[in-house]
């Protein structure tokens, strides 16, 4: 019995590995996705970060030399040129007069706040000006014999629960999502080819005419697709391992590293998902008559895991998602990469549900292959 399953499996794998379409579909996704993501983030981070030395154009600089020097100490320098023109600071003509009278002196920042490249620099300038204002305010009070602490009725402290790892939470969520989703992408073509394709080529009838049980047939196809799905996962992990560290994450205040132990965790946790993906895809494809039809069905069906994983990664989802297949694993992996403990209970239940659905689908498939309608498309 087992030897026949192995024979079937071996053939499926040989056949699939020679199928450029199946292999490339997995490869493109596994190689391409991390690279594209990293590329995008590199560009984005460059856009978002403010240069160490920020040139701005200050009008009326000679009215407020102390302020200009203060900004200079913060790396914000009065300069000319195209780059400096983008952020202008206009010091009002009556700056010194207002200051001398203990009033507020007006300074105006002129910049396009919708330009993402500038946003961080604008905020930096605003913050520097606020600090200067606060410092002068404190000293004005001091000069009048008042403790500046009276200006701070509230001492607001933020205790950020984020760890170094969890700060990249959303990005990590997307990264994990791409990894987990690779099991759905990588095996998809093979699943279609080995089911709808098999029938389209008329080999299904021949196969069933041989002394093999439908159980063996389903099992071998399931394993073959799972193997491909896992291969895609291994690949995307390997590529991610090398690609993610190349992005200058620290600019955003966190780091992302795909450690070997995390990779191993993903593989273990991803296995049931891969099996679910395989059974779901085989199930749907066997219902379609042709390769094309299967493709269009699957594209629709794949929205379900997509939605589950996505919503889990964005943290917008209700708690129930923790216990569901795909989203449960996604959630668990996000906890792990945030350096928190693996939520064992949730993971066990969602993995159990995943395996249960897989089993149900496999049984349904076995039944389906006994049906004349399905085999001959009658």
């Amino acid at each position, binding site marked *: 019995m087992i030897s026949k399953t192995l024979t079937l499996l071996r053939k499926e794998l040989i056949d699939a590995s020679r199928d450029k379409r199946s292999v490339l579909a997995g490869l493109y996704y596994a190689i391409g996705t991390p690279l594209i993501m990293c590329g995008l983030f590199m560009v984005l981070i460059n856009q978002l970060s403010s240069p160490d030395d920020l040139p701005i154009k200050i009008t009326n600089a000679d009215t407020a*030399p102390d302020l200009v*020097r203060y900004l200079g*100490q913060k790396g914000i320098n009065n300069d000319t040129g195209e780059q400096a023109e983008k952020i202008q600071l206009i010091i009002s003509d009556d700056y010194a007069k207002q200051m001398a009278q203990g009033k507020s002196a007006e300074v105006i920042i002129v910049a396009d706040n919708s330009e993402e490249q500038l946003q961080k620099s604008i905020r930096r300038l605003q913050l520097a000006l606020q600090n200067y204002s606060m410092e*002068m305010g404190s*000293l004005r009070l001091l*000069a009048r014999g008042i403790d*500046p602490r009276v200006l701070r009725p509230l001492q607001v402290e933020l205790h950020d629960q984020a760890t*170094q790892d969890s700060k990249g939470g959303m990005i990590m969520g997307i990264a994990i999502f791409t990894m987990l989703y690779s099991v759905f992408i990588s095996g998809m073509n093979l699943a279609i080819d080995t089911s709808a394709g098999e029938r389209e080529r008329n080999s299904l009838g021949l196969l069933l005419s041989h002394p093999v049980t439908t159980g063996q047939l389903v099992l071998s196809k399931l394993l073959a697709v799972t193997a491909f799905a896992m291969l895609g996962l291994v690949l995307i992990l390997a590529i991610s391992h090398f690609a993610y560290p190349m992005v200058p994450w620290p600019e955003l205040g966190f780091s992302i590293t795909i450690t070997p132990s995390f990779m191993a965790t993903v593989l273990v946790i991803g296995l049931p998902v891969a099996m679910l993906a395989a059974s779901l895809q085989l199930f749907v494809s066997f219902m379609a008559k042709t390769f094309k039809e299967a493709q269009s069905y699957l594209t629709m069906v794949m929205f379900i895991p997509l939605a589950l994983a996505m919503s889990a990664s964005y943290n917008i989802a209700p708690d129930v998602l923790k216990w569901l297949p795909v989203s449960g694993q996604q959630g668990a992996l996000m906890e792990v990469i945030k350096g928190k403990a693996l939520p064992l209970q949730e993971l066990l239940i969602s993995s159990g549900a995943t395996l249960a659905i897989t089993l149900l689908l496999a049984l349904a498939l076995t039944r389906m292959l006994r049906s004349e309608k399905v085999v001959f498309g009658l």
Partner: protein
Amino acid sequence: MTQRYSRWIGLLFGLGLCHALPLPAHAAEQSSKSSSCYAEGLSDQLKCGSVEVAENPKKPNGRKIHIHYVVIPAIKNLAPEEAILGIAGGPGQSAIESAASFERMLSKARQHRDILLIDQRGTGQSNKLACAGEDLTDIIKLNDDAYDSAKETRECKAKLDADVTQYGSEQALGDFEVVRKHLGYQKLHLYGVSYGTRMAQLYMRDYPQVLKTVTLDGVVPMSQSVLAIGGAIARAQELVLEDCEKDPSCQQTYPKLRTEFENVQQSLSEYPVMEKVHHPVSGKTALLTLTRNKFLGSLRLALYSPAVRSLLPFAIHQAYRKNYQPILGLLAMQDGSMDLAMGMHAAVVCGEDWPRLTPALREEAAQSVMGQMMLKAMDESCPIWGIPAVSKAFGAPISSDIPTLLLSGEKDPATPPKWAEMAMQKMTNARHLVSPYATHNVVAQSCGGDLIAKLVETDDVKAIDGECLKKDVRRSFYLNASTVEPLPEEK
């Protein structure tokens, strides 16, 4: 006099107040055994913990104390075997309570390495040897000239549950090593500020093999007694007067500042001021007693921060005109701004500095008012504390080839640039950079953090370009209670 000492004189070697208006952070919050915690002013989750050590290293089975530490995790840890150890000043400041300041100063270097902060024994959470403090009302009211410092010292000593003789620098150094090993760091980069530079130099002397680089900010050479800073204070005061004279606006506004300063001192030493004021915090009516010592003490504190320093000509001028509000404001800054552990402070200063005062040093110290105050205070309190003196070898300059960066601020009222030169006599791989505008604690007031990051990355002091220290970041003097900018000439 202990309290007084802590307010005006003991505040010798702090992380400056500098950038920290409103006032600097204190009192870190920490749950002692848990592995994550927060520090005031810092939203990041920190790793914290403690190690148990013998209070007296020679009696390993004796009384135990806990040395607490926090690790500010690297943004992206490229060197998990290394950490940057930040050592606070005082002596008596808590490094953990200053976590936010250390993080700001070392944020560039933190990109790739953890920052390790240890509450030195006797400070912060590591069995703090604190004396009861006074509230601001008392600080304003009391006349220090009529103060029994011996009694205060005795009272404080009686309350402390510790063998105070065990809280010197060398005992504390052993704790640092225990923590380092406990956390598994193979190598350290040191950043010591003020008194912390003494700890760093002892580290270089005793455990050079675990150090990759050292940065000394506001250097106290081993050969120098911290009590010898009367001259440094006088020098910094003089620089304020000089800077004002060189500055056209200041000169024009306060043309007779030097004379006025002399006059105020003269008058206060003869007739201390006593008047009703509004309490700087509560606004209630309070009594202000202003002696010369209190006056000079409040000015001295202001010298630590470039921003507050810029208020001094105005404050002196107003005092001359009998308006003591600005001085009242400066006095208020002493409340809670520096929570020194006075028992630990005494353990260090009375063991390591007071006994090393030679007659020559005493004579030199006596030349400045602040020096005299300090001598008097120590002479009264140190015999009561009874800390054994360190050996003579303690004062030997450090011989080392560890890449060492020494930073000094030209306007420093505590550790003048020439002290750094003394410290580096026998350092073969050291560089001394002076910021022309900084006061005490250069890194907080300049691009020093960038230089440390560079040193930590390259292990090479020669690779450091100190040009950025020369950038003009001077602060203008206040011309009245509201402005630093002169009015444009009327046409």
